[in-house]
């Protein structure tokens, strides 16, 4: 990969090879990767919250699972991707602190994962692999050339999904 495009919190980006996509230190947020295997057009959204309809101030569409995926697909189509060919990968959604109460605040990672899965299911996009949940942060790097998502965590070997 020539250049890795950094995608920050509540942000999204799309690209074609030889560029790649990365997001650093993913915690309870979820990284949603979409990929068209024929044109190799790829997108990465770093979402923070599950549902834009539950929040009053929802103008930042990259922040929510539902609106970020829609926007990312539009952007990918502009680069030549075809909707019906898209496949997905998910990473993140950790529970960073092991709270003993079951309030919403504590389960936001899990809710983000569920929202991302449901959104992709509604659009008929298959999730071919995911590394989600648990209690640790992840740095992810997507290579559009190979379709590989590498995941780095502290104190564990790099995995590729």
């Amino acid at each position, binding site marked *: 990969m020539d250049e890795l495009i950094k995608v920050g919190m509540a942000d999204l980006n799309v690209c074609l090879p030889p560029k790649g996509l990365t997001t650093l*230190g993913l915690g309870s947020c979820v990284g949603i990767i979409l990929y068209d295997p024929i044109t190799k057009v790829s997108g990465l959204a770093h979402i923070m919250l599950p549902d834009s309809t539950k929040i009053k101030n929802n103008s930042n569409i990259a922040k929510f699972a539902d609106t970020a995926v829609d926007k990312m697909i539009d952007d990918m189509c502009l680069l030549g991707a075809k909707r019906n060919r898209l496949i997905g990968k998910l990473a993140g959604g950790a529970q*960073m602190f092991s709270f003993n109460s079951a309030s919403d605040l504590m389960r936001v990672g899990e809710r983000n994962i569920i929202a991302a899965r449901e959104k992709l299911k509604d659009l008929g996009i298959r999730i071919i692999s995911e590394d989600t949940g648990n209690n640790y942060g992840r740095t992810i790097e997507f290579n559009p050339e190979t379709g590989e998502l590498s995941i780095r965590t502290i104190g564990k070997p790099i995995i590729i999904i």
Partner: protein
Amino acid sequence: MSEMNFDNIDSIQLDILREIGNIGAGNATTALSQLINRRIDMGIPKVNISEFNELSEVLGGAENQIVGILLSVEGEINGMMMFVLETASAHNLINILMEKEIDNFDEFSEMDLSALSEIGNIITGAYLSSLSALTNLRIVASVPYMAIDMAGAILSVPAIEFGKIGDKALLIQTDFGEGKESVFGYFILIPDMKSYEKILNSLGIWG
């Protein structure tokens, strides 16, 4: 009362928040100083209003490994309080506290983790009780929760809370240090939006 957000915060309000950081961290630092029986210097508090993607830059980059101790805050003020240490500082702090020689810098033992958690409890407690005394508002803190991981991942927890109300996060950040065997850390107070209004109101600044 007009609704508060971080786009229209004025310099007087910022000064007040900075002063809260100063008093809170001053008390916390004193508590820590007594605990380890050493003199600790405290920096001038910074009030940062930052975009989400700049948040982890404050703590040395998204992948920088840190120790985060988080308490949820309830009562008349709601939100979170976080105490953050660089991992090297955390080891130094434990070594000073337990009078150990510098040993393994990579891993924390069960005893280390327990000590860190207790340190977090004592000093965030001191921070919050001074805030409570200053504002005359009742503040109840949860037990401390600890995580050792990438700064970005740890900060995603408070960032998501801010994300529910806007696109920026406000951090009242105070660093402190113990000269020789450097211990550097930050206190981050993260009240929700209503609580900011209450804090400023209680000091006669808002509304």
